[in-house]
């Protein structure tokens, strides 16, 4: 993280000093000597600054081939008019700031985007507004870019006719922060990306996932909010992902998750809030993930761990008002639960050490029945089910015997993260 920050600082300093020494400013406006962005780009050389005055520029398929800075004043709009992509950056250390880009059409095979970053080292894309484009910001084969403070708004109606908001492919050391992304397929998408940091973004109302990792190792995301997406976040076929301080909320629907972990190895999931998701976390084929100090509040399922997941640790979390705390399709348990607060715990604490004296079994009998025949959901909250659950508590027979929290916390942890739930 610090390294990425440092790299970006170095990059910024290079950009700033470059613009002072021996470079020129090109101002673009309807009454200036230069009236189009294309003309400004053609006349520019390394170190130049292009200043875009307010106005609608009906241009598309622009290419940045020099190390320049494009500074747009408020009200400067690049309108591609559905004729092609917006701007493609093909040179290292380019900065684009404050620009509004609109109307990049959906295409069948090409991933047309408002800003395409193609094989560069170092770039800054910040404070832009991107509206109604197929893909918004697409970074391929690049490293050390900062994508910050952009407002991206798509009009995704069907999933196949919408691209991703911020799309990273074969990148490393990227910093994606404080962007607001709505109405796309995936808000932020990473494929073959490493050593990158995704922080403080808001990703909501996207059709598929708020954030999506594919084959991307050693990344972190923190302090993001994922709300009302098809599903919150999917982390798939990746290793070493750090997930901290995020909010996953209102991801409702048949195949909706707050967080889907599919073949993730060695992850840390800490201090997150899961509020009102169909399944807060769905874990499949994932090993050695530490799930610590999270709040699971008012979800359908808090944790849905499939039997092919091993050595995951669930400790010191709050489980509050979830229909089911833990569910599994396996009669064996290969994971570890300890010191969590479970609001359904009916034990006692005679020695007053803050820990319940009898273990808690977070899997309810009914959730096992439900797993085998989903139609039985109709019996939820019926007296018959309560009786079955009571019997199972006294004489455990169906629930994996080792799936217990041996030291259930007696009082709720005050994690601060549950503030957003009232």
């Amino acid at each position, binding site marked *: 993280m610090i390294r990425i920050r440092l790299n970006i600082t170095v990059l910024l300093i290079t950009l700033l000093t470059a613009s002072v020494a021996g470079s020129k400013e090109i101002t673009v406006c309807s009454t200036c000597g230069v009236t189009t962005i294309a003309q400004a780009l053609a006349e520019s050389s390394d170190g130049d600054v292009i200043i875009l005055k307010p106005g609608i520029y009906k241009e598309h398929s622009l290419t940045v081939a020099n190390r320049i800075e494009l500074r747009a004043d408020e009200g400067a709009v690049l309108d591609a008019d559905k004729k092609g992509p917006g701007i493609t950056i093909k040179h290292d250390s380019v900065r684009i700031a404050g620009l509004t880009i609109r109307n990049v059409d959906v295409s069948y095979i090409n991933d047309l985007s408002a800003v395409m970053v193609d094989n560069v080292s170092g770039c800054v894309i910040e404070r832009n507004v991107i509206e109604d484009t197929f893909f918004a910001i697409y970074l391929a084969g690049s490293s050390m870019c900062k994508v910050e403070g952009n407002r991206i708004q798509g009009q995704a109606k*069907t999933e*196949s006719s919408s691209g991703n908001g911020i799309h990273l492919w074969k990148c490393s050391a990227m910093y994606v922060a404080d962007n607001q992304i709505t109405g796309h397929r995936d808000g932020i998408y990473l494929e073959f990306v490493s050593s990158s940091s995704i922080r403080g973004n808001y990703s909501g109302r996207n*059709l598929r*996932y708020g954030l999506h990792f594919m084959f991307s190792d050693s990344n972190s995301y923190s302090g993001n909010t994922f709300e009302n997406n098809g599903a919150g976040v999917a982390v798939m076929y990746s290793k070493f992902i750090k997930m901290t301080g995020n909010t996953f909320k209102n991801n409702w629907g048949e*195949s909706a998750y707050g967080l*889907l972990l599919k073949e993730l190895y060695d992850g840390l999931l800490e201090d997150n809030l899961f509020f009102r998701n169909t399944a807060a976390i769905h874990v499949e084929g994932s090993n050695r993930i530490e799930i610590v100090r999270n709040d699971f509040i008012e979800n359908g399922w808090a944790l849905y761990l499939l039997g092919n997941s091993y050595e995951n640790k669930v400790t010191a979390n709050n489980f509050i008002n979830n229909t089911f705390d833990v569910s599994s399709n396996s009669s064996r348990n290969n994971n570890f639960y300890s010191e969590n607060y479970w609001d359904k715990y009916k034990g006692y604490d005679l020695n007053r050490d803050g820990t319940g004296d009898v273990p808690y079994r977070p899997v309810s009998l009914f959730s096992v029945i439900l797993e085998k025949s989903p139609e039985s959901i109709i019996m939820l909250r019926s007296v018959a089910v309560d009786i079955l659950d009571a019997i199972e508590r006294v004489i455990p027979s169906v629930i994996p015997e080792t799936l217990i929290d041996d030291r259930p916390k007696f009082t709720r942890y005050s994690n601060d993260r549950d503030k957003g739930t009232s």
Partner: protein
Amino acid sequence: MNAIIILFSLLAVFGCSKETEPIEYGKDQCAHCRMTIVDNKFGAEMVTSKGKVYKFDAAECLVNFLNTGKVPESEAETLLVTNLESPGNFIDARSAAFLISPKLRSPMGENISAFSGRNAAEKFKEQYTGETYDWNSLVAMFRSR
């Protein structure tokens, strides 16, 4: 009464059919990778001899699923892949031609596209580069990895 009999016989007929099902993009999940299927250029499907339908987000997921052996290929009555040239429409996988091209990125990173025939695949190969395969060589190539 007659109506009820007709209804039940209809149910019986459709209940046991080995019909293929269209993919509901944005709703259906891939049976192999669990991802929501969204890209209508790359989906795939298998219908078993018992009539069970498995849907996939990409040809590579179908191939990988078969290679896991959970459902052997001998039980697959129908194998379908999406024709890249006609998004959303299936063609028979066993007679399709395939192109693996890094310039045609598929949802699961293997970059497999399917075409109705050799000629179409070769045409795309000229423009997008890559290697062409038929169904058997594609499955064999993945199995050997």
